[in-house]
């Protein structure tokens, strides 16, 4: 019997473990991303941020989560109860399912006689799957806004759907640029190709990365494109009528989506799990970076322990220091005694480090820029991002042809020559578009319409 169970579960064991980790840890991680965001915000705004719940606010996410879980769950009288109930679930499910396609570390490992990758599913259409599934989240927003039966919610939902749909095109085109270079949709193959070519695609196609970045901010409804929930205009957009746990689910979905788009950008443009300068012997000292970083965290925590006024804060901070120390020790293993673990441990570290860096950029933008108006946002999307991204795809195609060896009809160019041609060509077209737009505004201004 047990034998049968093992035989039945063995192929699915690793994916199941990863699924469990994603479902259990992701809400916590999202909570700590919120804390990180509040701390970054406080830093940018010359203040301290959360400091009361736990040392340096380290327990704030847990307190917030408990508060939201215990809050009264209000369903407005005129709301469509079923849709109101299911809408947040759609959003959060779509956001979480998207994680299934991400590959966090290289290689395949034998486990109970089955080869597994460090991913829930090693799909050959990985990116397509992620984009498709995460787009489903829009249903949650539209249905939630509609089911609330409130004007602000409805306006928020309409804006949100229009915005996500139009920026999805630009984001998709930018991704296609990356996919053209890799020649594959599989998240694993894309990173492996980058490793083989020795260049991250952000350097090959900087424009595509830039377009994807802007479009992904718009897609996740973050400032400066956070119109659907522009609190100064629409109160809280589609979330206005939601409270308690349902609201928390929307919030969770939003942060999961952020992590997903960061994961996609990391995979396609930032070399996934690859260390900076992977394969360069002179840069091997970077293998120590993970350990050093976490030792630094641990040291900082220990240094702050005597400065806490309350005993409980001292204890919590010591626990955090211990945790950081354990992680540092684990990350030190591959460079000392267990080189075989390096791909997984350091792979996951570098992947997450890049995700966090990408998220940091999101936060940085949010606290620096004012918000776009809806029509301006649409104009930016349709008149700029989409045409430029389409042109960029064509230019990249041209560059790839030129890079082919002469016997295949190319010129045998190096990657940087292709990069210069494709980026330069696209920028020229963008400048032409800009001049056209300028002329048009002038004409409109002159005719006085």
């Amino acid at each position, binding site marked *: 019997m047990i034998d049968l169970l093992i035989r039945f579960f063995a192929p699915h064991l690793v994916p199941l473990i990863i699924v469990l980790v994603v479902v259990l840890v992701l809400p916590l991680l999202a909570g700590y991303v919120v804390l990180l965001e509040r701390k970054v915000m406080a830093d940018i*705004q010359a203040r301290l941020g959360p400091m009361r719940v736990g040392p340096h606010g380290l327990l704030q996410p847990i307190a917030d989560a408990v508060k939201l879980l215990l809050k009264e769950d209000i369903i407005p009288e005129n709301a469509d109860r079923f849709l109101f109930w299911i809408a947040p679930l759609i959003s959060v499910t779509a956001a979480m399912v998207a994680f299934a396609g991400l590959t966090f570390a290289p290689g395949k490992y034998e486990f109970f006689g089955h080869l597994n990758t460090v991913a829930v599913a090693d799909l050959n259409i990985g990116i397509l799957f992620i984009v498709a599934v995460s787009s489903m989240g829009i249903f949650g927003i539209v249905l939630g806004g509609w089911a*609330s039966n*409130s004007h602000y919610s409805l306006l928020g939902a309409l804006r949100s759907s229009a915005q996500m749909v139009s920026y999805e095109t630009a984001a998709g085109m930018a991704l296609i640029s990356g996919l053209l270079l890799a020649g594959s949709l599989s998240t694993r193959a894309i990173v492996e190709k980058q490793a083989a070519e020795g260049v991250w695609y952000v350097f090959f196609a900087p424009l595509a990365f830039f377009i994807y970045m802007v479009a992904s901010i718009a897609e996740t409804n973050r400032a400066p494109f956070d119109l659907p929930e522009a609190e*100064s205009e629409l109160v809280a957009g589609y979330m206005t009528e939601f409270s308690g746990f349902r609201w928390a689910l929307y919030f969770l979905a939003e942060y999961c989506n952020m992590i997903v788009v960061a994961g996609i950008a990391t995979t396609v443009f930032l070399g996934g799990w690859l260390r900076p300068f992977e394969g360069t012997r002179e840069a091997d000292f970077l293998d120590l970076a993970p350990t050093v970083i976490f030792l630094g965290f641990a040291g900082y925590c220990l240094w702050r322990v005597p400065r806490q006024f309350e005993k409980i804060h001292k204890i919590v901070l010591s626990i955090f220091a211990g945790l950081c120390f354990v992680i540092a020790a684990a990350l030190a293993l591959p460079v000392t005694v267990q080189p075989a673990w390096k791909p997984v441990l350091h792979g996951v570290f570098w992947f997450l480090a890049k995700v966090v860096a990408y998220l940091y950029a999101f936060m940085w933008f949010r606290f620096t820029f004012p918000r*776009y108006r809806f029509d301006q946002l649409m104009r930016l999307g349709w008149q700029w991002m989409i045409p430029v991204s389409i042109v960029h795809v064509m230019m990249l195609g041209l560059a790839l042809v030129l890079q082919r060896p002469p016997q295949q009809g190319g010129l045998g160019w190096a990657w940087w020559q292709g990069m210069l041609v494709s980026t330069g060509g696209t920028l020229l077209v963008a400048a032409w578009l800009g001049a056209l737009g300028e002329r048009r505004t002038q004409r409109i201004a002159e005719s006085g319409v």
Partner: protein
Amino acid sequence: MSDWGTIGSGAGVETTVLGADEILINMGPQHPSTHGVLRVKLKLDGEKIVSSECIIGYLHRGVEKIAEYRTYQQFAPYVDRMDYVAAVSNGLGYCEAVEKLLGAEAPPRAKVVRTILTELQRIASHLLWLGTHALDIGALTPLFYCFREREEILKIFEKYCGARLTTHAFRIGGLQYETYDGFEQDVTRFCKDFGGKVDEYEQLLTGNRIWLERTKGIGVLTAEQAIAIGATGPVLRGSGVKWDIRKAMPYAAYAQFEFDIPVGKRGDTFDRYMVRMEEMRQSRRICMQAVEQIPAGPILGKVGKVLKPAPGEVYHSIEAPKGELGYYVVSDGTVQPYRVRIRPPSFINLQAFDQMARGHLVADVVAIIGTLDIVLGEVDR
């Protein structure tokens, strides 16, 4: 606009469909960005504003009526509660109006200190405006920078008179208190630091493409329209009319100091923004000059303990941060004013709202409310 249909259907948003595609939407009085308790009824065509109506009175406290039942001194703290982010300026206007009625005058020392405090208050008021205006347009960060500097000003107020917001800093005939030791140094230090801070705000906003797109051409008020409405202050100057009571009819000690009056060209939100930014610099300039030349002498002029002005009437106005703040005081020879009529700048500037908002989008409404820089305590009184 009388029939609003069912009130309260769908969580506080009252709606009735008028005609084909127009919807009515109610903003406020409990809306995050109506700066208090302003209520705006918007008639929308899609997201475009067809017409709008401001409903005020949610903060009405009958300040003018209260004045008729208080002595002249007793009423002075009440004026602080009108424009509560610029209490010092309110107090100055009232004190000078009553002084004019009495035929008394504040001594030179009092006048210069009054000027310094009022200009600091102007900076504080403009800082609050800048922070909230930027916040409405979606820039979260300037608010905290502005409050950081505003805090320094409020500390000076607190040291001077013990209060931060509703200061009641002046007294009819002069000053309530002598300046504290180190007042000059505090003001000088603030002014020195503040010069760079304005540039810092400008770095965040002025050249920012999104900021430009959100403010240029939004809420245009031509000079003719502004004059017709009676708009004053930065709203009028943003439209290009060079009118500032500090220059036109100098009061306090303004005649002694050099400063410029910034004006805009197109009368849009961006111009008003630039006018206010420049006004902060000019206020700093006035403070720097004034703090160098505070004369010695008494702080209180010759006014009696019981104020009994001869029967008569007087109108006196000052340039408050938001525009012309006028007091029309009528005396019947008793210790209480017969009538105090207040001309609040916010109330009159708010009349421009409908003209400015028509044809713009819902998102611009918050930018326009922000650029008018209204304080509902002053609008409703």
